[in-house]
């Protein structure tokens, strides 16, 4: 699997927020096997040390960084944040979020497409956080995106895949674009289901960070993603309405009256 020409062995990308402690974060990231971590940009004072400490941690992991534009509500905010991220992290990758609705954190798909076009034209490699809407996805690809990241459900909601049909259609329509389910997953079976649909990867944060045992949950998600991927490659059977006996009837003993 590759994103913008970068080959990755792990199909799990993991967020770094909301963990109970930096030590648990470090262990969970390790247990996940992820090769990409998402990070953000936030204000820091001249005397503040939080950002510098976090950056030291990221560097120690040696993992690739995917900076986000979380919290941005306008194209201008998102584009400026992307510029700052590129300056800071020295990467063309940007997880592009342009949020419209504060209750659901549903993206402003109009602003998202516009920002994706601006950033792609400036040489960014955009990972758009979008909905499962097929036409929006088409517009994003037209704008230059070569990865799409539809939500499973609202960020942090743990609801899983709200619209399996929509995700399935997206997969069928874009066989050659890497598709990542980003956001809304709660348990490993949700991630396995996404992979069984043929999705290329999963991006997680809260489901691991807010689990009772984040390290154990990180490992569980890694296994589920691997299982889901294997299942997809093994071509699942088609569902049917009626039973089909698995044990052959031929040779059954005649035991009736």
């Amino acid at each position, binding site marked *: 699997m590759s994103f913008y020409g970068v080959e990755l062995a792990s199909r799990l990308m993991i967020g770094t927020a909301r963990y109970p402690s930096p030590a648990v974060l470090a262990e969970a990231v390790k247990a996940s096997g992820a090769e990409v971590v998402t990070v*953000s940009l936030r204000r820091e*004072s*001249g005397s503040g040390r*939080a950002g510098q400490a976090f*950056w030291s941690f990221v560097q120690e992991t040696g993992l690739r960084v995917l900076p986000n534009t979380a919290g941005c509500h306008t194209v201008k905010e998102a584009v400026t944040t992307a510029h*700052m991220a590129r300056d*800071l992290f020295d990467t063309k990758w940007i997880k592009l979020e342009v949020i419209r609705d504060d209750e659901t954190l549903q993206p402003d798909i109009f602003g998202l497409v516009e920002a994706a076009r601006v950033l792609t034209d400036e040489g960014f490699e955009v990972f758009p956080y979008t909905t499962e809407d097929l036409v929006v996805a088409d517009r994003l690809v037209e704008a230059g995106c070569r990865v799409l990241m539809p939500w499973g459900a609202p960020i942090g909601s743990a609801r899983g895949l709200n619209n399996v049909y929509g995700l399935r259609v997206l997969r069928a329509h874009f066989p050659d674009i890497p598709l990542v389910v980003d956001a809304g997953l709660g348990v490993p079976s949700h991630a396995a289901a996404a992979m069984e649909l043929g999705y290329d990867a999963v991006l997680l944060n809260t489901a691991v960070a807010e689990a009772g045992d984040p390290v154990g949950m990180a490992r569980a998600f890694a296994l589920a993603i691997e299982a889901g991927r294997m299942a997809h490659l093994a071509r699942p059977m088609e569902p049917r309405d009626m039973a089909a006996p698995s044990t052959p009837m031929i040779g059954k003993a005649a035991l009736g009256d």
Partner: protein
Amino acid sequence: MKIFVNGDRHELEAATLALALAALGYGGKKIATAVNGQFVAAAARPQRPLSDGDRIEVVAPMQGG
């Protein structure tokens, strides 16, 4: 002159963004900057003049999803 850094008012005499950041304790730190909503690259900070009332944003790497 007065400038605003991450929303806080500071009284500071600094001809450029780089000088202001050094005076505020940001020297050597891993940060990104904008002035009045416009991105200013690290390499451009020594050439970015400041004026009274400028609003500076200074961000650092932080946990994110």
